[in-house]
């Protein structure tokens, strides 16, 4: 293979990766949500969502209502949580809300979770800025595949490398 062929094949691999990635970005812009697809990792929302379900998120402009299921991040914690909003207090100022959440399958609300970190002591509510997205739909169990790949990272690299190699060597 000469340089031009290597560049052409590399471009094919790059465009395959960016094609998927940029579609995801475009979808994120459309839904106003940075990660419009998430996978459920816990059983705290049983029987609504099981481990491995894929959730479709978006961030509509209207205020969050009681009963909505939200994916949120507690400040200082990396892993997002998906739970239902069970209480809301709206301040007169537009876009300001105080929200309380609870997992359908949990016995208590999430205040214990909010305050788990020392820095969050006294935190009684979450706010719209903590919300990653609001659940609009779901696909049962299809996310098991990504959970499997996170549990076995080698599989992920093998898959990605394999597809990349096929595209690179394909003429």
């Amino acid at each position, binding site marked *: 293979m000469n340089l*031009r062929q290597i560049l052409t094949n590399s471009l094919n691999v790059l465009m395959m990766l960016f094609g998927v990635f940029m579609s995801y970005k475009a979808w*994120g812009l459309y839904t106003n949500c940075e990660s419009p697809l998430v996978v459920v990792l816990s059983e705290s929302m049983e029987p609504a969502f099981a481990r491995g379900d894929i959730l479709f998120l978006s961030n509509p402009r209207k205020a969050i209502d009681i009963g909505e299921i939200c994916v949120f991040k507690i400040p200082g914690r990396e892993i997002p949580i998906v739970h239902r909003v069970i209480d809301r207090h709206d301040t007169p100022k537009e876009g300001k809300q105080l929200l309380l959440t609870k997992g359908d399958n949990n016995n208590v609300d999430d205040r214990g979770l909010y305050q788990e970190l020392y820095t969050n002591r006294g935190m009684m509510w979450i706010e719209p800025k903590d919300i990653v997205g609001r659940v609009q739909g779901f696909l049962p169990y299809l996310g098991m595949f990504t959970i499997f790949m996170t549990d076995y990272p080698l599989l992920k690299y093998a898959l990605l490398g394999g597809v990349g190699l096929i595209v690179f060597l394909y003429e």
Partner: protein
Amino acid sequence: MTSESQARAIKVDKSNLTDLKSACDDAVKEYLETKAGYRQSHKHTDIKLVIGYLGCAAAAAGSYYGYIHPFELPATKFWTFVSVALYYLSNILMMGYSYLVEKNTIFTGSKTTPKGTQTIALGSSVKSYNPYYDLDLRMDFDGASKSSKSKKSTHQQYSTAFRFWFDEDGVLAQDLFEADMEKFLANTEATHLD
């Protein structure tokens, strides 16, 4: 058949039109470069490579900007939108270039003689269920003398059945094939070098 030509014998599935076409494409490219003395120009490939890599660079830059800045900021959304738009624009441009400019071109090149520079663009195609190799030959001649009359161009089409070049085993008769190519080239040159 000499041992040399035996080693380089090209054998294809003669019931597969795509195989026949790509065998002829490869053979005519090699003929133009090695025997007819044309130097290949990679203009089309290079233009598409530049467009493609520019699009990927925009995508990478936008992704990096989104990675280091929080998504909620309007600036992040704006630059993400710009990079997504540029990436898809580059895809569309590449496709458009292939369909509208490059079309069926398989070889572009030129050769310089004392008389001037001869540029060639060769396109090839086959139609479904039609065992003919259609060649589309464009030649531009730019004379060494500076007079305006020295520029000439011509466009000729040739259609030949594959059966004239492949035997019943699907082996390409390179001597026959190259003789025909030589004839086409000479014929095309004659139409504008009168």
